[in-house]
């Protein structure tokens, strides 16, 4: 019995050492955001004086708040669209019998094999033709419906008993209402999981946004931070970059801490189901 306790202490010690490695970059980021530029000429752990000038500059002199707003708007719309369309398509593929059902399902699934990287060039050329470059719609359109989400929703919709839907039909509900009122409430956990991973994916998306965005006002947070950091020929303004990173990362960490259980379950659920 005692031996077991010893080994438990040992495991805690190892895990805590790992925790330091995982958390340290975040602490370093926050500390660095309170340094003034001369603090970066040589190594220092603490700021010489807690200096808020980086934050003042970020809010006054850059478009940071606009980037934040862009990220929130784009994330919210794409997530909403994915929830509606993916669940409707998943429901249709799971619960209706019609010719071509299997072919359509395979067609949608097979698009999962196509990497985004291969599509960005055609998307860019299409976007240029349709005047979508540097617009919200241009940033959003590739993600509005998503094959993995359809697959996930179909798997969950398969579990809804047919009798439940037939009963609603007898009651005279139309088909659209049956999906909305009867089917959707049955798969709420899967919906919230899908919503979380879609929003996270969009919040952190970089490759397509950095291609399609051309003016400063349209930038999303990752694009804004990245281009601001490499944009100044006079060298990297570390305190500013760390301030922006802190402002981008801390709210996500807080949201994660609050919804920890749902997020972890959602990611596990989608990971395991996929």
């Amino acid at each position, binding site marked *: 019995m005692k031996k077991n306790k010893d080994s438990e202490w040992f495991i805690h010690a190892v895990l805590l050492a790992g925790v330091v490695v995982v958390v340290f970059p975040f602490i370093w980021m926050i500390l660095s955001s309170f340094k003034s530029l001369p603090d970066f000429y*040589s190594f220092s752990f603490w700021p010489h004086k807690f200096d808020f000038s980086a934050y003042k500059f970020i809010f006054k002199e850059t478009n940071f708040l606009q980037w934040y707003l862009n990220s929130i708007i784009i994330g919210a719309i794409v997530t909403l669209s994915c929830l509606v369309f993916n669940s409707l398509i998943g429901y249709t593929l799971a619960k209706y019998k019609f010719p071509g059902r299997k072919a359509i399902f395979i067609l949608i699934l097979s698009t999962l094999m196509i990497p985004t990287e291969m599509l960005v*060039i055609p998307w860019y050329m299409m976007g240029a033709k349709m005047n979508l470059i540097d617009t919200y719609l241009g940033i959003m359109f590739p993600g509005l419906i998503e094959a993995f989400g359809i697959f996930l929703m179909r798997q969950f919709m398969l579990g809804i008993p047919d009798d439940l839907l037939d009963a609603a039909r007898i009651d005279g509900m139309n088909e659209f209402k049956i999906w909305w009122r009867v089917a959707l409430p049955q798969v709420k956990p899967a919906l919230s999981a899908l919503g979380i991973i879609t929003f996270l994916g969009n919040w952190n998306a970089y490759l397509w946004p950095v291609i399609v965005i051309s003016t400063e006002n349209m930038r999303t947070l990752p694009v804004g931070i990245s281009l601001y950091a490499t944009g100044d020929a006079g060298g990297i303004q570390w305190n500013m970059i760390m301030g922006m990173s802190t402002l981008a990362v801390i709210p996500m960490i807080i949201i994660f801490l609050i919804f920890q259980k749902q997020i972890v379950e959602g990611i596990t659920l989608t990971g395991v189901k996929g």
Partner: protein
Amino acid sequence: MIKSTIEKSRKIHPLKLKTKQTLVAYSFLTIPLLFFLCIRIFPTLYSFSMSFSPQYGVGFTVENYQKLFKDHFFWQAVWNTLKYVIITVPIQMALGLLLALAIKRIQHFRWFYRMIYFLPYITSIVAVSWVWRLMFDPNTGFLNAFFGILHIPPQNWLSDPKEALLCISTVMIWQSMGFSMLIFMAGLEGIPKHLYEAAQIDGAGKGKMFWKITLPLLNPTIVFLAVTGVIQALQTFTQIQNLTAGSGSNAGGPLHCTISIVVYMYQNAFQDFNMQYASAVAVVLFIFILLVTLLQLRVLNKNIEY
């Protein structure tokens, strides 16, 4: 009662019900199908056709692929990408499995460890890359200061051609091991306890139990993590762009020794504006991913046969 009514209605109007179902289904599916055709299928075909087009003018040509074959930088990008795969995937999976096993063995604070180790996965790659870039900085970064305490000579990290790729891989592993851990935890949860109890009665040791029970039963989890990990590493872009690009220098340095397939494609398409040549690069990436996917299907089918 309800069921019998439905059956009756099915008997009276068997055809009508089926037609109605088909109509409703297709009315729900029309817009999404158009979307998939326009946003996924057509661009894929377009990408292939562009890779066989000359940069200026029209017509069919294989010159993009000929050029690709002789392009030293392209092969460097392919080789680097394979290095990212070979370095990051096994290490992040091994660390994830070790963490999952360790957390499973303790009684208290499991949720705390799970939460902390998963944290990097949900944070923005761009933000995290810049934080690491500051830590790697040879003059003011934390890592050289830390090495100084341990009396290890300072390193050049991202500006050293020998170390840069390893530095980027470290950031990738740091960020994704929490995901492996989470999936392994779910996989371990699914192994029935009575198997271990039975093995204990038979006198099996801990090591034997791990190799004969835990690892074989984790097989689907391992395949899933390996495939998603390989595909993700093949697509590495954001980390390289943010860890190595400067105001005057392209990403993928120093001396092209961190450039990946996607970074190379990006530079050809959106800095040199040779979309046709970049499409050929993209097609190669597509073939790599296709091979991994087909391999996965084979492995999974084999499992079913057993």
